[in-house]
């Protein structure tokens, strides 16, 4: 293990001190390696499958309103409505905090992006997203760790940083990475509580106790002015993400800090009551956008040398299901943000809604690994051949984009 975590409420491995202390000078053993141009790269893993058509809506697609039904977003214009990105796509209003980055050319979207595999299992899909492989294998390291090994050369100094709980698969492997986790983020994830509420219903002891516990917690939250339960839990949910992102930004901005980071955000598995302009998914998006904004601001001038890519394991069904939600799908949207991005546009090929994958999902036209390869090639200077064989083995057919970054 890269570190020896002791408590969820403590800084791990590296950072000693209370929340909000981000000085790297005092960190024992925290020697971080340098990378070409002192560039930064952040991967955000949106776990649970983000509905890409809700985040960046293809308002201009003639079948959009009909196919999405109850969860279709209205065309841009009205107050609280979608935000026009171009003549075809509109940004979800809950993502409004990142609109300025789009306008300034520091944000683009790659739509109808997937991960090149066909599974609707969260677990398998997240594994593949993190290993960078096309088919499931036994044990594997993470593709970002493999990239770090290449960037480090023989240097044993650390380059990577895991932000959140344990080191995620994407960062596990030969290269040592640092990890950081916030204090005070300990409340239970709301999804877990909801699922437990259902299966505890048949338990004569646990059922009533849990129900009482939730009531009591909601009460103390209302007294303390903390509405995290209502907003989808703390954990790695909407509210906590901004704190994680802020911390990641400060650590990455530090002169001798880490240069590559991965962080998680959950809460995207919207099978029930997904909502449209407002609702559950909107709340999660709001937290996500606030986090990206916090990350950018925390990085200060280093933002100019930064690329952030946010990906999810797969998209969601085009049509709404029987619970006003959406089920596991195929393609979603990838966010590419940062001072190093040639943004202000929606990239990728729109497959249209006339023909759907398995008659239900948005078809994939871009493998998200093409975006990752672009960053590793144009931002860090790794050779195409290395990317095709070592970072993402057997992917010569997946070509990096040209002109996605300022590089």
């Amino acid at each position: 293990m890269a570190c020896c975590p002791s408590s969820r409420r403590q800084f791990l491995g590296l950072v000693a001190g209370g929340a909000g202390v981000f000085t790297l000078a005092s960190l024992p053993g925290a020697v971080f390696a340098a990378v070409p141009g002192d560039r930064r790269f952040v991967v955000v893993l949106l776990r649970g499958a983000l509905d890409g058509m809700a985040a960046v809506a293809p308002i201009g697609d003639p079948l959009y309103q009909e196919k999405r039904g109850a969860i279709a977003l209205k065309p841009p214009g009205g107050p609280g409505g979608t935000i026009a990105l171009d003549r075809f796509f509109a940004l979800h209003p809950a993502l409004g905090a990142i609109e300025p980055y789009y306008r300034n050319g520091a944000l683009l979207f790659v739509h109808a992006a997937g991960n090149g595999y066909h599974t609707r299992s969260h677990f398998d899909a997240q594994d593949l997203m993190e290993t960078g492989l096309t088919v499931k294998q036994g044990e594997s390291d993470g593709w970002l760790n493999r990239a770090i090994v290449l960037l480090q050369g023989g240097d044993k100094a650390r380059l990577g940083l895991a932000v959140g709980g344990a080191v995620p698969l994407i960062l596990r492997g030969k290269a040592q990475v640092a990890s950081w986790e916030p204090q005070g983020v300990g409340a239970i994830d709301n999804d877990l509580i909801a699922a437990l509420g259902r299966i505890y219903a048949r338990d004569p002891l646990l059922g009533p106790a849990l129900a009482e516990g939730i009531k009591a917690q909601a009460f103390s939250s209302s007294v303390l002015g903390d509405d995290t339960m209502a907003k989808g839990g703390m954990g790695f949910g909407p509210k906590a993400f901004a704190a994680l992102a802020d911390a990641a930004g400060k650590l990455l901005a530090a002169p001798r800090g880490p240069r590559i980071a991965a962080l998680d955000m959950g809460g995207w598995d919207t099978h029930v009551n997904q909502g449209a302009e407002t609702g559950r998914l909107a709340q999660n998006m709001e937290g996500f956008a606030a986090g990206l904004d916090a990350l950018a601001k925390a990085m200060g001038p280093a933002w100019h040398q930064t690329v952030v890519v946010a990906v999810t394991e797969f998209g969601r069904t085009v049509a709404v299901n029987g619970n006003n939600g959406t089920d596991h799908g195929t393609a979603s949207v990838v966010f590419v943000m940062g001072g190093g991005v040639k943004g202000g546009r929606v990239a990728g090929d729109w497959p249209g809604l006339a023909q759907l994958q398995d008659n239900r999902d948005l078809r994939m036209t871009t493998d998200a690994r093409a975006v990752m390869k672009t960053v590793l090639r144009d931002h860090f200077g790794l050779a195409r051949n290395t990317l095709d064989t070592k970072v993402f083995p057997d992917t010569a057919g997946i070509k990096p984009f040209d002109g996605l970054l300022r590089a």
Partner: protein
Amino acid sequence: MVASAAFEAVVAATRFGYAARGDELSAIAADPRGWVTRQIDQPVRPTFPADLPPSQRMVAALLQMRRDKQQADRKAFNDQVRDVYFAELTARTNAAVSSPTPVIERLVHFWSNHFTVSGFRPFVRGFAFAFEREAIRPHVTGRFVDMLLAAERHPAMLLYLDNALSIGPDSIVGQRRDKGINENFGREMLELHTLGVDGGYTQADVIALARILTGWSVARLNDAEPGTFKFYPQIHEPGPKQLLGKVYAEAGEQEGIAALRDLANHPATAHHIAFKLAQHFIADTPPRAAVDEIAKVFRNTGGNLAAVSKAVVALEAAWSKPFGKMRRPGDMVTAACRAANFTPPAPFLAGGLRTLNQLPFYAPSPAGWPDDAASWVSPEAVLHRAEWCETFANRLPGPPDPIMLASATLGEALPADTLEAIQRAPSRRAGVALLLAAPEFQRR
């Protein structure tokens, strides 16, 4: 209800062990009851790290610290105690996680709770685990009387229950100084360790036993082997004593040994132990017939604990109401570690167990931890349990596939709705958290 062998395998693994993993369930299903009894017949002693200090060393360090009373020494001592506590906690958890005979580990924990020593009295902390290793573990499938003697004569118990300072008023020292008997040891031995609160003893018996036990103490720094059991004749109350109608003639240290042998053989003790075992392994309110049957085996075998434990396994009641018992937090934590084959760092374990109110060897009283659901299931406690499961799942290096883990752990006992909830979980870690927090894992 006639359960399938596959279902009974789950009951065997959870009710008598911690949790199955890998292919264990299919192996257990060949003979679930035999799987339990074979472990009792052939216990495997875990290998403990060689550097875990024996109690003698830690008791001597305590005596040294008390004599010197230097501030710096106190801090060094407290640091040492904390380090030893963490090392011991890791070793004990590892033993339960990796033992080929988890039933034995359950019995060890059961019996060290029966003979509770607690860090509520801070000086006990440095050698509480050593007490379990030295006085409890060697006897869990041996004779009750041997465990009783080993536990009561262990310095940890003599210090915890104040007997080291109990002075016979008519002893040589007692005549010189105005000090007296400390009843605590005698009372707890009768009430908690042997006869039970309804075992038919009186206050006079408490005092008689306390007198009998005067002189049982711990060797001081000036003695030959500091930190070990030592009998001091000069504080032993002289003369005959009458306990439970029997007169014990003056015999120094041997008086206590004779009294303990009689207490171990007392029918009330058989009943008391039988009740506690039945409550631990069968139900919060165990059927009377089950208690009677276990007590009968206890009496008939002279307190042979292998036979007594097997009597519990042989009872239909032990199998007929699966998942009727709520796991105590410590068992839940250990079971999760065993299921995932992962022992988290000691500070994580200790922090979690403290929040869950069952930090090992910190029972609030000599009665030990309660063994009924009502004592452990509260709204706050249930949230803490779920939170712990989530945190633990987030800690796992390389989270396992929760569906495979669920099937390896709960097998035939995995209900459809729990499985469905795990399948729908948004990530592996969330799925593992759900499995661990599920009623079937919280119970046994």
